[in-house]
């Protein structure tokens, strides 16, 4: 099964409900080798660098948090950050790696 066809796995933790304007903790782990470009394959050639270089979290279209990342971030990158929701809505998460492969996740939140 070629690696590209497998959909990227990601595990996400977003509270289902929150009070208006209170900080909510968001945690996400994305399966990705974060290939540094410094490793060599069995053929002696360098394995090309390929890391998730940008991650963003939007709430109802507005960007709340973003990360520019390099090979110094561990494989299967993990991020834990905060956002607020003034009203019920959807968090959208997007990321892209050096090879141009995009990933996305989303989660709804109910605001009291």
């Amino acid at each position, binding site marked *: 099964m070629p690696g590209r066809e497998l959909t990227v796995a990601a595990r996400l933790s977003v509270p289902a409900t929150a009070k208006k304007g209170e900080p909510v903790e968001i945690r996400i782990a994305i399966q990705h080798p974060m290939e540094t470009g410094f490793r060599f394959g069995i053929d002696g050639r360098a394995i090309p660098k390929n890391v998730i270089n940008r991650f963003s979290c939007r709430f109802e279209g507005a960007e*709340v948090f973003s990360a520019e990342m390099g*090979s*110094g*971030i561990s494989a299967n990158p993990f991020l*834990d*950050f905060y*956002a*607020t929701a003034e009203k019920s809505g959807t968090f959208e998460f997007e990321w892209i790696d050096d090879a141009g492969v995009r990933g996305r996740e989303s989660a709804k939140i109910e605001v009291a």
Partner: protein
Amino acid sequence: MLGASLAAGFGRAAFAQVPIENGMNAIVRDLTGGAAMREGRVRLQLPRLADNGTSVPLKVTVQSPMTAADRVRSISILSPRNPRPLMATFRFGEESPRAEVMTRVRLNGTQRVLAIAQMSDGSFWSATSEVEVTESACLDAS
């Protein structure tokens, strides 16, 4: 700093304290435009001894009211020993309630990791955290 390391004495691998010339200082100058970085407000937490250098937990917190007038714009994490000194930059949107991030990083040996926060008033604040990174006990050729 080198002299202090060598004098640190018995059991310390003094050579491990010498930062490699990886270009971190140039990146710091680019980020800050040469402005002074103040100490305080930034708290950078990593374990004193890493379980493994491929994945070290990192938490960075910046004290800030996070109001429109007084907030954190970004936090950058830098390494003096990794081949690429700029490890990540986290940016906080207008609605972000807290300048606090946890992630996991690769550390290429024992080193003092640096965090630089840029505030909405243009000021820069920094903190460091020293991490010991040891080699695995046994060779693993699997």
